[in-house]
Structures are given as structure tokens and as C-alpha cells.
């Protein structure tokens, strides 16, 4: 009787295929610049910000054709389907705050950011300078950091996906900022637009956040370090690309909310 047998070359080929399959979904860790930010209220520095860009390469002609096909399928124009789409990336933000002071302190991590269409400046949403600004896209919750100790935390993939959806809803669908930021979306589509460029944004056309501005606010001498952990469902994540011209740029246009309706 002849036994079934897998010869060595076939086995190695299978192994290589397995390796290739494993490698595609591995997370990539992207550091901000600067990698750590320090605040020291005793020296009049009670907040500091570090920025990180989601390094997505500008699409090729073939990818643009694919985006055009997607736009047609969704009933949108080409420009309304972003190059960097939320559904293509699973992003997580992990942070650690170290308290360098000898007393317990309170700190908060505040995340805002930008899509390829608009960036978020919460101060532009303040109708009156005496009002508190609307909440950030993520964070803003005070945490107690023990003296000479450290606290770590994470903004999960689903939270960042929700933040991207919030921002696209606010900036492109005209959803009221407080509603978008303080409530959870029942689906991954944006619905309930109130006069933006789009009334609804299908999940596949929700723009990814391609820039994250992470701010540390603290009442003691503290240091924040964070890292972006990204899983790419496609092949356009380029964490080592040095030429920023080859990356989808975050928008430099701040979204300005429409003025409130005039009182009769």
C-alpha cells in the first residue's frame, strides 16, 4: 500500500503561504513626534501635545479606479469617498502617563484629529468664550496618577472607529457635535445629517482619522508616552515612508460649524 505523502517542497510552499497570510494582519506600531511630551505646571506648562499621522499611501491609478467603482456603487461622487477609509484600518491608541512628582496628581489625555477633509478644533465650536468647549473626539476624563507612579490606558479600536465616524458625521453630514460625540452610533453608517455635504455616509465611505493630536493636561510634573497600533486590512499602510508627499495628507482646513439659527 502506498501512503499519501506531502513532499518537502510542497510543505515549504504551504509554510510560506501560511507565513504570508499571517503577516498581512499583524499590527504596526507608530510613534508620535515627539515620542514623549512633558508637562510641568510649576514651570507654567500645564499641557503639551504630540501628533502622529496615520501613514496611508496616496492611491495609485488602479486604486483610484477601485474607489470610483465604490463611489458608483454607493451613489456618491468620487471626491465624497475618501482615499483613507475608516473601515480599512483598525487603530488603537495606547498611552502611559508617568508622574515625576512626589505627590499624587490628576491628568487627562485628550485626543482630537483630522480626516483628509477637515481637522477638529473644539474652540471653533464655542459660541461664547465663557462656554466650555465641546468634548474632544476621545478622552478628557481625569485620572489620578500616584506619586512617582504611572498609569496606562488604551483607546480601543472600536472607540477610535467611533471617533472617526463622529468626526465625519460632524464635518461632512452636519450632525450636531454634542450629539455625535456624546451618543453612540447604532450602526457603522452615518445617518441623520442636518445639512452637511452629505445627509448620510455609508460605512464604506466614512473617512479615517489620518492625524491624531494627543494632549496631556496635568496638575503635576508628568510625562505622556503613547503609540498608535494599526492593523491594515489593505496594503497601503506605510509606516516607514519618509516622503510625506506620498502619504494621504491630513486636512489643514478647520471645520467651522454653521452659525446657530437666528432667534426670531
Amino acid at each position, binding site marked *: 500500500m502506498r*501512503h499519501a*505523502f*506531502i*513532499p*518537502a517542497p510542497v*510543505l*515549504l510552499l504551504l*509554510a*510560506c503561504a*501560511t*507565513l504570508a497570510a*499571517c*503577516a498581512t494582519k*499583524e*499590527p*504596526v*506600531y507608530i*510613534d508620535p513626534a515627539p515620542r514623549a511630551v512633558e508637562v510641568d505646571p510649576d514651570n507654567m506648562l500645564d499641557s503639551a501635545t504630540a501628533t502622529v499621522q496615520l501613514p496611508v499611501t496616496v492611491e495609485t491609478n488602479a486604486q483610484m479606479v477601485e474607489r470610483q467603482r465604490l463611489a458608483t456603487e454607493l451613489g456618491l461622487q468620487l471626491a465624497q469617498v475618501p482615499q483613507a477609509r475608516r473601515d480599512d484600518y483598525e487603530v488603537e491608541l*495606547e*498611552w*502611559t502617563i508617568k508622574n515625576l512628582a512626589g505627590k499624587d496628581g490628576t491628568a487627562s489625555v485628550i485626543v482630537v484629529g483630522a480626516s483628509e477633509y477637515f481637522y477638529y478644533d473644539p474652540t471653533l465650536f464655542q459660541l461664547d468664550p465663557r462656554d466650555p468647549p465641546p468634548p474632544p473626539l476621545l478622552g478628557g476624563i481625569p485620572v489620578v496618577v500616584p506619586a512617582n507612579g*504611572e498609569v*496606562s490606558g488604551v483607546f480601543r479600536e472600536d472607540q477610535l472607529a467611533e471617533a472617526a465616524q463622529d468626526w465625519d458625521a460632524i464635518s461632512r453630514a452636519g450632525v450636531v457635535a454634542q450629539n455625535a460625540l456624546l451618543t453612540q452610533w447604532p450602526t457603522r453608517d452615518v445617518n441623520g445629517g442636518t445639512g452637511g455635504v452629505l445627509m448620510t455616509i455609508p460605512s464604506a465611505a466614512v473617512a479615517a482619522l489620518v492625524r491624531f493630536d494627543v494632549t496631556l493636561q496635568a496638575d503635576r510634573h508628568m510625562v505622556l*508616552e*503613547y*503609540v498608535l*497600533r494599526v492593523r491594515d486590512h489593505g496594503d497601503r499602510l506605510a*509606516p*516607514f515612508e519618509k516622503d510625506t508627499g506620498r502619504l494621504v495628507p491630513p486636512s489643514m482646513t478647520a471645520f467651522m460649524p454653521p452659525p446657530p439659527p437666528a432667534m426670531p
Partner: protein
Amino acid sequence: MRTRALLFVCCCAAALATLPRRAHADKYAHGYYAEAGLGTGFFLGEAGKYIAPGPSFALRSGYDLWSWLSVGGRFSGGIHEGDVPPPPEREYLQLIEGAAEGRLTLRIRRVALFAEGSLGFGYITTNLLDRVGVTTPDNYLSPAFSAGGGIDYHTQNRHFSFGLTGDYSVFPSFSSAQSVSLRLYLRYTR
């Protein structure tokens, strides 16, 4: 003189290859083989500070040229927690290896002792270790040199044996990281 020596070696090899198999050859199959092993792997030295021990596997396949020498390929890997200064925390990486290897075997009845050496490549699947200098950005492939040995026990079925193997590997491009893996395996020889 050199040609004669070479000729002598070739003749000896040919003679060995054509010798009738010894009586116990019927008890132990020789030829193509496949092997699967499971165990653990850990790192030594500087890399060991940042890479926690983890489960390890190996798939091997090749050919027994003689009862004492076989050549083949190995595909192995392990999953390890990256113990880097936070952030990030509790993140995992995979080390994948592919190598060509040779094995020398000394069989004493059902038990065999063997030594093996291999040359190949190792691949780390993430850039997690960049921050501690074990890997460098955009370079996650390294040559890999391995040596090891083990003990093999042949079952009464002439095709199957099992045993314990240990391998020591060096990855020059990963800051000369050194790993040790210990695995229990099952081997099938056709």
C-alpha cells in the same frame, strides 16, 4: 592527490548508498519523512529581556539519504509576548523561521540520538521590537543559524517515531538575538 581523495570519497558514498539494508532496516522505514513538533521557545541575553517565552511549533520534511544522515527543510515559529517598556503593553509577536537542515543520527535499537544544524531565515512579524533596538525599522528578516539535537524513540510501527528536540538559533540581524526551543515531535517516515 586531491582528485584521488575525492574519487575515494565518492566511491565510499556510492558503496554506502548501494549497500543492502541491514536487517533492522525493515523495522525502521527510511526515505521521505515529515515531522510535526510542539513545545516552547525562549530567548537568551539582551533580547530575552524583551521577548517572553512562548509556545513554539515546527514542521519538518526531508529525505533520509542513509540511516544516519538526512537532509530537509524546516518551517517553525513561535508566539511571544513583547515585554517592551509601555506603551504598548501585552502585545504579541511571532517569530517565523524557514531553514534547510541536515541531521546526523546514531541509532541504538529503538532509540536514536541525533544532532542537527540548519541555515535559513527568521522573520519577526511586527515592528514592536524597534523601540528596544532588537529590530530596526523596515528590517524584520534575518539570517538564522541553528544547531541542536535530541533523542528519538521508534515505535513498533516502522513508520512512526517520536522524541524530544532542542534547537539553539542565532539571528545576526536581530541584534544577534539567540533563541532556544524545546519541542516534542512525532515523525512519519515513508
